[in-house]
C-alpha cells in the first residue's frame, strides 16, 4: 500500500456566482494525507474543504492541478479505487421515502456487496432496530450513522467525513468521534474535515489547515497547534511571587493571569510541578492552555490578507 493515501498538487477550482462573479474556492492546494490514522482537514467555513473533498470524489471538476488517491490519479482512475473509499460529504443524502435498510440494500447491490452485509453494518452503527423506518423519520444523528453504515458497506481503506458532527448532540458527537478513532486504530485512513479544532484534536494524528483554498499548515497535531514550541500552562499556586522567581530562574516566562500564572517555555508541564515542589510550593491546579482554531488560524493567516 502507498504511504500516502491522498495527494493533491496545485488543485484549483473557481465558481461563477449567479451574477457572474468569479469566486476562487480552492487555489493551488497541495495536500498530503498519510495512509493510516486520522487526518484532520481544518479550516473555517468557506475555506474550500468541501470543494476539495468533492473534487477528490469526482463530484465536481477541478480547473487545474492533480490529485491521487492511493497513488492512482483521480478522477481518471477513480473507478479503480472508489471501492476503497467511503465518503460522507456534508449532510447525509439518501432517498427520503425509502427505509434506511432499503437505501443500503440498493447501494450494496450497486457495488456487488452481499445483502447480509447490510444487516451487519446496520448493527455496527446501532441502527438495527430502526433499519425498517423511513430515512426521513431519522434524527440527524441517525442519518449520520446511516451514512457511516453506507461507507462501511465497501469495507473501505479510506474514509472521508466532511463536517461529521454538524448538528449532532454531545452524545452523537462522542459516538462519531469514537467511530473515527476506532477506524483509525484499525489502520484505516480517516480524513475528517471540520472547522472545530478541538473536535479534531481529540481524534486526529495529523492535520492540515487551509484558508481561502490554500494550505496554511500541515503536520502532527502538536506541531501545528504549538508550532513546534512547548505549550503554555496555567498554574494555580499559593505564593505567586515565589513561584514566579523559581520558574523564571529555570528559564521560563511567567505572566500573572488573575489567580493563575501563565507559564511559557516549560519543556514539559511536569517540569513546572517538580521545580515548584522542590521549593515547597505546591500546585493546586495545572492546565495546559490549548490554542483553539481561531487563534491558530489567525496566527497562521497573519499577513495573508484574509
Amino acid at each position, binding site marked *: 500500500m502507498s504511504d500516502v493515501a491522498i495527494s493533491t498538487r496545485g488543485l484549483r477550482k473557481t465558481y461563477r456566482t449567479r451574477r457572474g462573479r468569479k469566486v476562487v474556492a480552492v487555489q493551488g492546494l497541495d495536500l498530503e494525507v498519510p495512509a493510516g490514522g486520522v487526518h484532520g482537514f481544518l479550516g473555517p467555513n468557506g475555506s474550500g474543504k468541501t470543494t476539495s473533498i468533492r473534487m477528490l470524489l469526482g463530484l465536481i471538476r477541478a480547473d487545474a492541478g492533480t490529485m491521487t488517491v492511493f497513488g492512482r490519479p483521480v478522477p481518471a482512475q477513480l473507478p479503480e479505487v472508489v471501492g476503497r473509499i467511503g465518503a460522507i460529504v456534508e449532510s447525509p443524502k439518501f*432517498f427520503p421515502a425509502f427505509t434506511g435498510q432499503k437505501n443500503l440494500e*440498493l447501494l450494496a447491490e*450497486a457495488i456487488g456487496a452481499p445483502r447480509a452485509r447490510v444487516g451487519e453494518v446496520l448493527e455496527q452503527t446501532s441502527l438495527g432496530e430502526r433499519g425498517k423506518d423511513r430515512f426521513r423519520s431519522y434524527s440527524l444523528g441517525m442519518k449520520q450513522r446511516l451514512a457511516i453504515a453506507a461507507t462501511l458497506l465497501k469495507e473501505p481503506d479510506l474514509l472521508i467525513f466532511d463536517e461529521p458532527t454538524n448538528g449532532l448532540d454531545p452524545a452523537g458527537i462522542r459516538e462519531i468521534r469514537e467511530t473515527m478513532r476506532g477506524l483509525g486504530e484499525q489502520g484505516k485512513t480517516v480524513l475528517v474535515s471540520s472547522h472545530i479544532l478541538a473536535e479534531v484534536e481529540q481524534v486526529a494524528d495529523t492535520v492540515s489547515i487551509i484558508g481561502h483554498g490554500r494550505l496554511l499548515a500541515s503536520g502532527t497535531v502538536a506541531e501545528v497547534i504549538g508550532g513546534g514550541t512547548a505549550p503554555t500552562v496555567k498554574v494555580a499556586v499559593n505564593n505567586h511571587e515565589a513561584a514566579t522567581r523559581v520558574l523564571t530562574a529555570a528559564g521560563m516566562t511567567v505572566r500573572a493571569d488573575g489567580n493563575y500564572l501563565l507559564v511559557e517555555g516549560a519543556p514539559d508541564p511536569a517540569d513546572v510541578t517538580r521545580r515548584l515542589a522542590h521549593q515547597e510550593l505546591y500546585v493546586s491546579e495545572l492546565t495546559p492552555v490549548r490554542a483553539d482554531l481561531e487563534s491558530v488560524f489567525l496566527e497562521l493567516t497573519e499577513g495573508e490578507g484574509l
Partner: protein
Amino acid sequence: MIRLTKVELRRLVSRRLTAVGLVGLFLITILLLVATYFDARPLSAVEQQQAQQQYEMAHKDWVDHAEEMRTQCEADWKTQPDPKPKLEEMCVYSEPKPEDFGKPPTVFAQIMPDLLQGSSYFLAFAAFLIGASFLGAEFSSGAIGNWLTFEPRRLRVYGSKLLAAATGFVPIAAVVLAVILFGTFLIVDKLGDTASTTGKVWSDLSAIGGRAVVTSALAAALGSVVGLLLRHTAAAIGVVMAYLVLAEGVFAAFLEKAQPWLIKLNFDAFVRHDAQYYVTECKTGSDGSYACDYVQKTLSFEHGAWYLAIFTVVVVLLGGWVFHRRDVN
C-alpha cells in the same frame, strides 16, 4: 451496467410515485372500458321506438316532397352563374333509411385504433411523469451525490437510469394496452359488432399497440432526461405543459405548415402509421378572386419514426453530456 440497471429497476418499482402512477393507470383503464361499455350499449326499447318514429316521419316527408324539391333545385341550378356546381351534388335528396336513425352498432375494428391512440397519450404522459420524477427526485434530494461516491462512472450511471425508466415502463404499457384491447373486444363482442375483425385487423391493432409501447418507453426515457436537466419533477412537468400550450397550441395554430415538425403529429404518425393534418391554402383565381381551402395532408409513418428517433437521440445525448460535465453539489 446490467447490475446498475437492475438496481435502478428495483428502485423504480419501489417508488411511491410509481405505485401511484400504476393505480392511476388502472383507474383510467377501467374508466375507459366503462365508457366503451356505455358507448356500445344498444338503444333501449323506448329509444328504438323514438328512432323508428323519426325515420317514419322523415321518410313520409321525402315521399311527399322529394320530387318537388328536386324540381325546384334544378330550376335554381340553372340560374347559378358559371362555373356551376355539379347538378348531382347540388340536388341530392336521398331516401332516408332506418339505419340512419338511432344509434349505429359499435364496430370493434372502427373504434379500436382511436382507443389505442388515446391510450398511447395517457401512457406517454404517465411514463414521462414517472421518468421525470425518477431522476428529478434523485437530484432534488441530493442522493445522486451519494450514489456517485459508489459508482463514479457517470455515463454508466446515466445509461442505467434511462434504461431502467424505459424498460420498466414496457411491461406496464403492454399490460394496460392489452387490457384495453381485449376488454374492449369482449364488450363490443357482446354489445356491438366484431364480425369484421379479421386477422389483418388484429395485426394492425397489435402493431399500433406495439408502437404505443415504444412511445411510452421513449417518453419515460425523455422524462428522465428532462428530470435530470431541470432537477425537479414539477419543473419537468411545467416544461411539458408550456410546450403543449405554446408550441402545439399557439405556434401550430399560427404556423400550420410547421405542424410536421412538432412532436404530437409525429407521435400520431408513428403510432397510427400515417397521420392527417390540415393546412389552409389560399390562392388568387384567374378572375382576381381570392379563396382559401382547408387542405388535408398526410404525415408519413417514416417521417414520424425518424423524427421521434432523432429527437430522442439528441435529447439523450444532451442529457448525457450535461450529466458528464455537471458539478454535483
